[in-house]
Each structure stands twice: as C-alpha cells, then as structure tokens.
C-alpha cells in the first residue's frame, strides 16, 4: 500500500464529542474519544451496550443519525479532515475508502435487491464499473469470502442466504472498493460460534493481506483477545483504557477493564457457580457529570473520583488509562 501518510495514522480521532438533542434531554453518547488506527492494525473497541461504540463508528463516517451531531473534536482520515469535507466528497469516502460491516447482516441488506444488485450499486458508484466487469468482480469478491458457487448465489435475494453467508456478503461488499479502513460493528453478534470463528478468520486474513486499518467493535473480550492488536475500552462515551492487546489482558489498569475481564465466563474455569459481576448498571448519559463515570460502581472510588474527571494518561508505551487509582498488579484477574 503506498504510504503517503508518512507514518501518520490512517485514522486519527481526537477528543470526539457526539450528542443527541432529544426533546426533553440530551444524550452525550461520545464524550471525548481518542482513537488512532494505522494501516495493518486491528483496533478493538470494547465496552458495554450503550457505551458509544456504534456512535463513534458512525461519526467516523459522518453518519450520525439526526438528531445527533458531532459537537467537538477532530477526525482525520488519510490526511483529510472528515468534519470539514463536503458531502459529495464524503460520499466518495464512504464505501470506497471506509468499509463498514454491520452487526446484523439480516437487516442490513435491502430485502428487495439481489446480492448482485448491491455489488453493482457500489461498484458503479465508486469505480464506474458496470456490466460484465462488475459481474466478474462480484463473483471474485464473493469467492474470496468463501461463498460457494458465487455466480449463482449472487442472483439470490438476501433472505435466501443464511446468516453466516450474509455476513460474508457484507464483508465482501465492504471490501468491494478496496477500502483502506474497515469498520466492523459487532460483526458476529448475530452468529453462531462456529460461524463466528470462520468470519473472524476471514477478517484477519483480509486485514493481513490488504494492509488495512481495521476497527473491530464488540463487547466480546474473547474476540478482542484473538483478533485485535490494540484495544480501546469505552465506558459511558469515554475511553477508559487503551493498550496493546497483550498489555491490556496482562496488566489491566482501569478497574472497569478489570471488572469486565472478570465477568467473562471462561471455558477452562472450574465450575464454581460464582459469577463475578460489576455491580450496578451503566449510567445514563443524559447529563455531563463531573467525575469518573465509573465511580458509582467502582469499589476503589474515592471522593476525587466522584468530583474530578480523570484524564486519559499514558502509563506505559501505548498504554493509557483514565483513572485516578489505576490497578497496579494483576493478581485479581482470574485466568
């Protein structure tokens, strides 16, 4: 891949704020996201439901649904300031330079168009590819994601394909115009473990072979562990911790990360019938509070946590956390 980036990250998001102005309240969905992705790097974004993962992804494509808007921050993609681009340029980026793999493949394809038609659309919109060319490329793409007999299957309507196949189609579709950044928003939540494994392997292959930058949004730490290079842990619209994968699992610094890791049931664990849970529920993000958003559920919280928002601070190479009292040792993580 030609590197006109000169070592700069492919995507650089700094201090991103996104909020939704509802009738009687405002949802502060993202409150200062920092994220960068380099070519060939797989960045995992984890966090509980509602922590702002999807909204962040949408912001990168400048597709936050109304009444949401980006209130603050900077998004630089391949040297271009996404927030400042005209809509027409943005359209050229979407689908062509940034590919998106959504969570639920079943509802993400137009039910009244054939698979082929979906490809045709993108190929003609971005690559001016039509007719035989487009057909051949579609077949090639579908074959590359492991759809058997692609030439006939592509004439099918989405509902005739299984979930796993659809997700492959979604991946092929996202890859159709050879994007430089791939965003996968919980791409396997709707799928079975065996299929999930297949899809994720495919994902790894693609990133490796095409030197893509990739963002993998999930709340499954197992997936992150196996398929990401770096992790961003989000909570209540903020980044709690970010680190290389090995680092994060070996030395989680934020109590939330730790809690999350402890929650994950382990296949290898003995049957103890004791489940570690983070008590309480994630906060509503309808108001901007001073202090650490995790404080109400944190056993290490002090008054400082409740009144002052901790900044995201580097605590090691490529390892940063937003916590006044980071966890020092890893004894507590049950493996």
């Amino acid at each position, binding site marked *: 891949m030609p590197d006109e980036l000169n070592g700069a990250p492919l995507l650089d998001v700094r201090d991103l704020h996104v909020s939704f102005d509802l009738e009687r309240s405002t949802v502060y969905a993202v409150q200062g996201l920092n994220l960068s992705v380099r070519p060939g790097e797989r960045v995992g974004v984890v966090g509980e439901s509602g922590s702002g993962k999807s909204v962040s992804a949408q912001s990168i494509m400048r*597709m936050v649904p109304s009444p949401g808007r980006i209130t603050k921050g900077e998004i630089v993609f391949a040297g271009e300031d996404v927030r400042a681009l005209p809509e027409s340029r943005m*359209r050229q980026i*979407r689908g062509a330079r940034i590919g998106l793999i959504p969570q639920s493949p079943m509802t993400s394809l137009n*039910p009244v168009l054939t698979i082929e038609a979906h490809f045709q*659309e993108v190929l003609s*919109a971005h690559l001016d590819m039509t007719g035989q060319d487009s057909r051949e490329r579609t077949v090639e793409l579908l074959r590359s994601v492991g759809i058997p007999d692609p030439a006939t299957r592509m004439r099918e309507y989405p509902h005739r394909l299984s979930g796993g196949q659809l997700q492959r189609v979604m991946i092929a579709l996202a890859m159709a115009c050879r994007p430089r950044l791939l965003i996968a928003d919980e791409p396997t939540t709707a799928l079975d473990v065996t299929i999930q494994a297949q899809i994720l392997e495919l994902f790894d292959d693609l990133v490796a072979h095409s030197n893509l930058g990739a963002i993998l949004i999930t709340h499954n730490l197992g997936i992150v562990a196996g398929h990401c290079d770096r992790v961003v842990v989000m909570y209540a619209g903020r980044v709690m911790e970010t680190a290389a994968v090995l680092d994060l699992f070996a030395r989680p610094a934020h109590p939330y990360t730790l809690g999350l890791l402890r929650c994950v049931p382990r296949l290898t664990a003995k049957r103890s019938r004791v489940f570690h849970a983070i008590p309480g529920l994630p906060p509503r993000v309808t108001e901007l509070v001073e202090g650490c958003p995790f404080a109400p559920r944190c056993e290490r919280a002090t008054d400082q946590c409740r009144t002052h928002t901790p900044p995201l601070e580097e605590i090691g190479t490529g390892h940063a956390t937003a916590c006044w009292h980071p966890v020092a040792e890893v004894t507590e993580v049950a493996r």
Partner: protein
Amino acid sequence: MIAYLARRFLTLLLVMLVTTMLIFALMHAVPGGPFDQTQQPLPAPAMANIMRKYGLDEPIWRQYLNWLWALLHGDLGIPFEQPTMTVAGLIAKAWPITLIVGACTIVLSYVGGLVMGCVAALKHNTWIDWVLTSAVSTIGVALPNYVVGFLLISIFSVKLGWLPAGGWGRPQDLILPVIAFSLYPMALMARFTRASTLEVTYADYVRMGRARGLSERRITVRYVLRTALIPLITIMGPNIPNILTGSIFIEATFALPGLGSYFTTASLHRDYPLILALVLIVAVLWGTCYILSDIAYTIVDPRVRLEGLSR
C-alpha cells in the same frame, strides 16, 4: 403457481356460487319488480303476459338454475334496463369507458399520492409535510367527489369554458372526471405512503446504503420507495376494483356512459340479470385483484411467499 391459481380460482367459484344464490334470494325479496309501472298498475293479464315472456313466472330456484345454465353457456341474459342489448353487450360497451377513467384515476391518484406522501415523509415535520398530509388529505377525504365534480364543472366548463361539462369520446372529456375521481384515493394514498415511507426511512439497510456511499436519489428510489411500496400494495390493491367499477356520482356528473351507474340503477330498477352480472364482475375483479396483488407482492418483496407459513 398453477396450484395456487387453481386453488384461488376454486374458492372464488365457491364464493361466486354462494353470492349469486344470496343475491337471487335478496333481489326477489325486495319489493317491486322490473316491470312495475308507475302511472297505473298493469292489469293482471297484461302483467302475466310480461312475466311469462321474461321467465319470471317460474319459482325462484328454477329461475336460478335457468340463469346458471345460461351462464354456463356464456349467456348473461337481457338487461331489463336496456332490453335492446344483451347484458354482455352492455357491459362490453360501458365497462371500457369506466376502465379508461378508472385506469387514469389509478395512475393519477396513485402516482400523485405516492409523490405527495413521499415528499411529506422526506420533509418529515416541516410545514410541507403538514400541508400535504393534513390539508390536502383532509380535503380529499372531506369533499365528496360529486361536490368536487360540481365545482370543477362550474369553474372550468361553465365559467372559463376550457373543458367540456361532461361527455365521452374526446381526450379532454377525461380530464375533469379523472381529477374529481382521483381526489379521494389520492388522499388515502398520500397518507399511507407517508406512513410506510417514514417507517423504512430509518431502517438499517437504508443507513447501510448510505454507508456504502450511494447517492441520496438512489437511496430514495431503490431503498426507501421500493420497500415502502410493499404495504401499499396490500392497502391500495383492494381499492382497485372499486375504482375500476366506477362511481355513479362521477358518471352522472360528467355524463360518462360507463358501468358505474348501473351498480345503483340496476338495483333501483330491479334489473335482475344486470345485478347478477355486475356481481359477477365484482367477484372476478376482486378475485383477480387479490391474486394480482398477491403476485405483485411477491415480485416487489422477494421475501414474501404466497400464503406464508402456516401454523
């Protein structure tokens, strides 16, 4: 397909049989007969002669069987209202007129309503939306078509002299009746389109379409509209028989020698053969529209299978 059609057809036949029997009983139960005179009742012998001539002196079940038998031979009888023609001839003459007006009405009202509904949905919660949905559709619903027809004639024919005050045969004869006839279905269509368009506007796959960098026009036409059409077929499909059988008000107002009036006059005149024929027409139209909208549904929405899952 064949099996489906055959099954639909058989149930339709059954329904038609039951309906015609019911109609037979009904129409003979209604007081007055087709040959009653107003000035003076006819003397009994004269009346008897007439009844004998038209086979009305036989018991009802016999008459029904006779009718059925004739029907099987393709004979619908003689309309008492227009005894110089056959029922089939009358229908063949009048229905095309109604069909043309109806077809134009369907095109105008469905396309017009579709556009209005779409615009309203795309401009959701703006004054355009408000005007289109509330004002236009309320007027369409609250103004009966005979009032609209009367207004149109008063203005465009009598006052301005631009368009004929009714009649049939020239292209300009179509304009006013179609407008008057269209208003109500157009209003309905606009309402439904708006609702179903709004529903899909926020669907996942529409967002995904945008995420693939497709143009807004493409999104609107191929993503929003195409799927918004699906519920419309089931809602507006059954309206088609109504439109294709015309309206007595429109036909009377605009002097269209169409079929619509007969639906009323045949009953008022106790025109038995015509009543039955009209019922058959409605039945066939209904059945056809039902089947067609089923099939259209499967074409527009590939997910649908006819009759769906049975449990």
